[in-house]
């Protein structure tokens, strides 16, 4: 229908050998990343890992020192080629929303339609409709300072969605919101992005947000893309101790290898290990995952995921380790515990429906494949 919102076909994103320096500081180092058209990619990493720089290079705000960026079939950055942001046909939700304070919500949204060269009235109509879509139709004429943080975030989202660009970029859009609003906005973003069919690239340092949203996760560390793939792969088979730590750990335990490696259906391997600390005699071995390569040495480290840890009474023969409860925190659906295991290591975020008191002795059981092993 003439004048209706134009949905541009989703474009794939390809980054090859992208490097970016700020003076002597290397922000990105030979990044290779491929995001299929229409998928939702989350770039996960701690502060200073380079994820914002990568996003800004994709947007065209920063210029690469070397490497290549292609959006769909268009080469947008390589050597002297650098397409400015306004010619890349993408949209972005900024961390602080970046709403122009002198424009009302509807005018903020309508600005993004200029590139579609619509008549002013049509642009305004589409902007209002997008604001209604994000639940802000009644606030369309308000200025940003007259809106709450969540409302401003919705305006920023509407502005990014309204022009139907094939690529959407999100720069930690939920980091300024409280926990409840974060979850609701996360669902809203996921729904809108999937409905639009656009390729989305979203950066965050929050692993739970990343796993909830992503079709593909890329983990960045010190300017390197250290792993990319489906969230399940990244969680189950982290490429390095850093990725294992950054994607959620209860703790790290020194273990000794107790058996042969066995291949798994998902490409990884299984390995029987037992705690290096003086253990409970006669217990079964812990079945852990070896995500990458081989563990050829006898001593290794088990990176324990919180979900695989079960607390048992101290005398329960199913337990692999003995421990003392250090802290107990009520979480509504149960309790999170911090433990000091017999070898001197700590496990945190260990959930149980039952409350164990500080100082209680417990037995800890580790479910098969609840942890991954890397050579020490």
């Amino acid at each position, binding site marked *: 229908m003439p004048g209706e919102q134009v949905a541009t076909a989703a474009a794939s994103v390809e980054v090859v050998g992208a490097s970016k320096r700020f003076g002597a500081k290397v922000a990105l180092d030979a990044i290779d990343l491929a995001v299929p058209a229409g998928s939702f990619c989350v770039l996960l990493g701690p502060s200073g890992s380079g994820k914002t720089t990568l996003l800004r290079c994709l947007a065209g*705000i920063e210029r690469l020192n070397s490497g290549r960026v292609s959006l769909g079939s268009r080469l947008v950055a390589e050597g002297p080629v650098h397409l400015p942001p*306004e010619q890349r046909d993408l949209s*972005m939700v900024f*961390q602080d929303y*970046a709403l122009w304070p002198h424009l009302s919500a509807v005018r903020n949204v309508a600005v993004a339609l*200029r590139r579609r060269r619509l008549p002013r009235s049509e642009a305004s109509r589409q902007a209002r409709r997008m604001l209604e879509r994000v639940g802000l139709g009644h606030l369309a004429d308000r200025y940003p300072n007259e809106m709450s943080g969540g409302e401003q975030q919705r305006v920023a989202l509407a502005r990014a969605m309204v022009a139907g660009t094939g690529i959407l970029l999100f720069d930690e859009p939920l980091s300024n919101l409280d926990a409840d609003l974060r979850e609701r906005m996360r669902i809203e973003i996921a729904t809108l992005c999937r409905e639009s069919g656009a390729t989305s690239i979203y950066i965050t340092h929050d692993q739970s947000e990343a796993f909830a949203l992503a079709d593909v996760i890329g983990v960045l560390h010190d300017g390197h893309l250290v792993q990319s793939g489906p969230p399940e792969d990244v969680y189950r088979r982290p490429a390095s101790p850093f990725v294992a730590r950054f994607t959620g750990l209860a703790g790290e335990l020194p273990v000794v290898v107790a058996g042969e490696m066995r291949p798994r259906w998902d490409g990884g391997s299984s390995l029987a290990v037992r705690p290096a600390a003086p253990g409970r005699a006669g217990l079964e071995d812990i079945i852990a995952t070896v995500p990458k390569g081989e563990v050829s040495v006898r001593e290794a480290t088990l990176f324990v995921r919180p979900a695989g840890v079960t607390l048992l009474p101290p005398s329960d023969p199913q337990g692999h380790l003995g421990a003392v409860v250090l802290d107990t925190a009520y979480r509504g659906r149960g309790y999170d515990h911090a433990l000091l295991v017999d070898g001197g290591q700590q496990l945190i975020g260990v959930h149980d429906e039952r409350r164990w008191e500080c100082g209680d002795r417990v037995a800890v059981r580790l479910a098969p494949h609840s942890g991954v092993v890397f050579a020490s």
Partner: protein
Amino acid sequence: MKTVTAPCEGGAAGISPGGAEPLTGRSGFGWYRRLILRAPQVTVTTIVWVALALLLIVPVALFLVLALSPRLFSQGADWFTLSNFRAAFTGFFARGLLNSLWLSALCAVLATAAALALAWGVQRTNLIGRRLWPLLVWALLLMPSFLVAEGWEYLLQPHGVLDQFGIPSVLAYRVFFGPGGVVFVDTMTIIPFAYVAVSVALANLGSEFEEAARVHGCGPIRTALMVVPILTPALMSALAIGFAETISDFGVASTLAASSNFPVATYNLFQAVDSNPANFGVASAISWVLVAAAALPIAVQAAALRGRSYAVLSGRTRQPVRRRLGPRSQFLGVAGAAGLFLLALGAPITGAVLASLLNNFGVSFSAHTFTLANYGLVLDGTAGLAGPLEYSTELAAVTATAVAVLGLVVARMMTARGGGPLGKLIDLLLIGSVALPGIVLGAGYIFAYNLPLASSLGLALYGTTPLLAMGYLATSLPPQARLMVGPVSQLQESLLEAARVHGAGTVSAWVRSMLPILARLLLWAWLLTFAKTLLELPVSQLLYPPSDTPATVAINNFVGTSAHYGEATAMSVVAMAEMFGVILGGLGLFRLLAPAGWRRIGGFINAR
């Protein structure tokens, strides 16, 4: 074992630490104790208010009331009349007011546009020389407008410097000696004020608004059109300051405008007071208009921004990526900035320096030779021409010291525990005084300290050096105290308390904990006040005692008499050199002598 102290007998106010008596007990001597304890604070407050009353409130208020009620001061027959306003709004005086209004509006717009372009280039692009241009802005800020005007006059006047070098200047002379020249010089001299307002806002404006515009499809021009309105408060401030500074300017008004027969309000006011007999009534009516006109744009700005927020600064505000200028843009940018400072500083300074080096400049129309004779006369004590510079230097040093001390006290009073109603009143008074034209203040002093009442109180100070010093203090104290409020309000009381708790006395605690933090602030306050006072014109022109002539008055008087034209040019150059020399010397000494810790903190001058 008894571990709890028994409550006071009779249920008195409670136990004070250390077993001292309660300060708020029911004792009949409670009020006396409170008075004793608060005596130092009450004394300081009283001194400050008396000083503010004598310096600002009384002379200005009396002078302004005069326009409405001349009989109150034996200046006419009416207890209430509007005749002074009628006179101020007719004929020559009306033309001056009208000229001042359109001149101020035009200069404010031109200066804001130039300042925005310069600030954008310095802060948002890789413009070559972006460290130099802000320094030149500060140099221009310190440069008195009358020296800029006179520097250009030396260059362009018939048989002036350009003529001496065979450069035709007739056309430039015709344009310059008229409204065009006045607009030009006034615009140049207010650019720094607009620049400071705009550049601070630009520095606080993160790059995300530009990036958001570009990512959502706006090209460079459209992006600029999107972002510039975010600077609305700063632009309105720049316009308001520019307007207020131009309408209250006396330097250009008394030199270029006067010699171009282009009447403006401040010079008309001066003439009304300086004529014989003095027409204080009309001068007072003109003052009303000047004060109202200076306050008007500030009020308009406040009304326009009411209920709107342009808050753009957050903890995550991202430093902007500097736009890389292409060769053509780079050339245009550098040429624009260099041209601006060449016109505003380079040309007038060159004019003054060359004129001061020419033999018989302004006396003889024949060809001149280069000489240092003018400097010899100015710097040689025996010729009597060194006197004005020495006099101004002494007064500037005294004023700067008084402003640094009093400004700190006033700022401290305004910020101590919110300041209370008195603090707010002082704040209002200071803001109003910042917008008060110096010429109005000077006229108010002449009037108030000539009244019979002043004589009977032993305050018949007209024609004395103390009154001139008071005038300098009154013009410099409000802006400096207001500037100090920001840094002083950020001082943590706990620093002082920590020093006291660890054994320092009151004075020692201040010296140990506050002075290091405030040292740079005080230094800048001293240097800026010294510079402004050394080359202050309107108050000097109205209040100088017959026995001593300040440097600025001497320069203006010499320019008006061809016999000493050369000395005037040399004195201008020496005064400028002294001003910049003292500032550079002060900063250099601080860098060399101040302890390392003092140099790392404090200060309120942002070189951006």
